């Protein structure tokens, strides 16, 4: 009798199971990071990050014996493992992401983002440019990243394009990283540095107002433009 009963329940359980998985999936995918209590801006470093901050984290973790790899400034899986075990030992959420709580436990000073912003500085433009660089060309060599920002600056100064940095970057269809939302990642230090160099007037693109990746572009019109320079994967043109 009991066997029969449990057999009866199988279809219910199966359907319920499918739906709860589905439901959880929908729920988590619609939850924004803000609701989860971790805004993108407060994450210091995470998997895939590079730069000085990663180096600091690795250095601390190595000294305390959590991290066995080299201090190279690249947040790879070994760094992630080390962070997770550090978080577990210290009663933090073991998510492998160095946020404010983990940073504090590590003894790293979290600089207040808005504190350094003074009147008249161009930090707003630096950040917008850096996001564009990071979204469009994080794998590119440094001068390739400066060149991307230089193209934005050249467009601002060209009558054929909008006249502000935001106007150029958010022009529909102008940048793939803007169209697919990749732009809204936290840019790394390198991208910020490249953005500053471009704002300070460095232009490795040679005055280009377009660029494309020949391996990914099928647009015939862009192929017809005279190429000025080739840096990394990108062709820069007039």
């Amino acid at each position, binding site marked *: 009798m009991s066997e029969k009963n449990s057999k009866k329940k199988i*279809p219910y359980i199966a359907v319920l199971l499918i739906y709860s998985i589905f439901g959880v999936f929908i729920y988590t995918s619609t939850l924004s990071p803000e609701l989860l209590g971790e805004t993108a801006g407060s994450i210091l470093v995470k998997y895939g990050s590079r730069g000085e901050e990663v180096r600091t984290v690795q250095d601390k973790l190595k000294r305390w014996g959590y991290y066995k790899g080299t201090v190279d400034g690249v947040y790879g899986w070994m760094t992630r493992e080390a962070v997770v075990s550090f978080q577990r030992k210290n009663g933090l959420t073991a998510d492998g992401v160095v946020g404010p709580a983990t940073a504090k436990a590590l003894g790293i000073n979290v600089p207040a983002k808005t504190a350094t912003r003074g009147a008249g500085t161009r930090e707003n433009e630096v950040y917008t440019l850096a996001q564009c660089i990071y979204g469009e060309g994080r794998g590119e*060599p440094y001068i390739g990243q*400066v060149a991307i920002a230089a193209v934005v600056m050249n467009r601002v100064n060209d009558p054929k394009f909008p006249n502000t940095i935001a*106007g150029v970057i958010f022009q*529909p269809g102008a940048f793939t990283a803007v169209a697919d939302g990749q732009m809204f990642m936290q840019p790394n230090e*390198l991208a910020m540095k490249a953005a500053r160099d471009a704002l300070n*007037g460095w232009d490795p693109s*040679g005055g280009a107002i377009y660029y494309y990746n020949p391996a990914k572009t099928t647009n015939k*019109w862009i192929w017809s433009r005279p190429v000025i*320079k080739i840096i990394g994967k990108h062709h820069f043109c007039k």
Partner: protein
Amino acid sequence: MKLFNMQLSRKQYHKVAVVLLAALILTGFFAYNTYTERKQYQIFLQNSYQKSFREMVTNVETIKVLLDKAEVSASTVNSNNLMTQVWLQSNSAADNLGQLPISHSALSKTEKFLNQIGDFCYAIARKNAANEEMNDDEFEKITTLNTYSGKLLNDLHELEERVNQGKIRFGAIRKQGRLIFKKTSANTMDADFGRIEERFNQYPTMIYDGPFSDNIVEGKPEGLTGEKITFEEAMKRARQFAGVGADAKVTQVSSGRGKIETYGLDIVQGENNGGNISIDITKKGGHVLWMINPRNIPEKKLKNKKASEIAKKFLEDHGFKDLTETYYLNNNNTTVITFIRVEKDVLIYTDMLKVKVALDNGQIVGFDSYQHLMANKERDNLTPKLSEEEARTKISQRLDIERVKLAIIPLPGNKQRLCYEFKGKHNNNDYFVYINAENGSEERILRIFSTENGTLTQ
């Protein structure tokens, strides 16, 4: 699976059917929800495109009327008023056009036209403000611009009608949609706009005193002197400039065919020494156009004063003479120092060089000479007509003057003027005020922002 091999009784079968039905209803509900949500986003997007489009049409309508009026205006005061309004309207029109989901190749000429109208009218407004009337040539340009805005307006009205009838919709956002309907619906907006663009094919070259004037857009590197050099010479020059030995490996990464033709070189140093130094050497004359050494700079040891001494010595060693330091900016343990040329005690702001110094060991990690190479080397007159005392009377009483110098400053439209530079204070803010050394008019005011990271002017 066992579940499906089971012999189900009628009752059990019934229950399974009910459960599946419930699942279907739930799925349907979810799909409907997603659908309505998507629809709402779509409408929101359409509305924002429609707003931009309609606002742009209104802008162009207003521009047309204003230009009509400008053609018969004989008063500088009223003309100034009209021109400023055109400037405002065309700015808004260009901005709205930039928001529309039309491919760049289909709208670039219209965008340029709108930007140029605004820029041209702003130049006229400035002229009017100095109580100067438009000359015949400028009236002719106004007429031309008016004719083209009329044509553009006709086309826009036609387009608007079709948009209102629902024949054209803005923005096929979905990529799949684009692939399937590539040849039919998705690109009609592009095609229609492309047709408007064809009207601008005979649009004349516009030359006037503004940054978007056609001769400025083209611009020539007047400071680029010397003979053509070979690739070997360029490599030698790069090694010498970057301060690396003759054995350092140099590779050509690109060949620049921009405004200034260059050999794009990389000095290979390997990862341990901080990566590659990129350097562009001009083909004509072998000048260093720019250099970037992106190495990591972990700490700050040097003071700015020491850095500026290093930068100065570096420039002297490489043959750049008669320079003075103006602004500096600290970032990422580096400092970027801007140098300008000084000729007979006159500051030449149009002739500019930038040097970036690493604050850990004083290495030069960046250099840029674009402005220096673009600057015109022959300046006709460096003696002012007005005396310093005469110029001083033109300065606002509210400014406490600290020092005065002569300077050549860049003005819109690639112009340069000899001015008296008054550095002064008001309300604890620092200012530069420039008084034209020929006619005493106030050409420009800059506010200086001094922060711990450097000085900026705006």
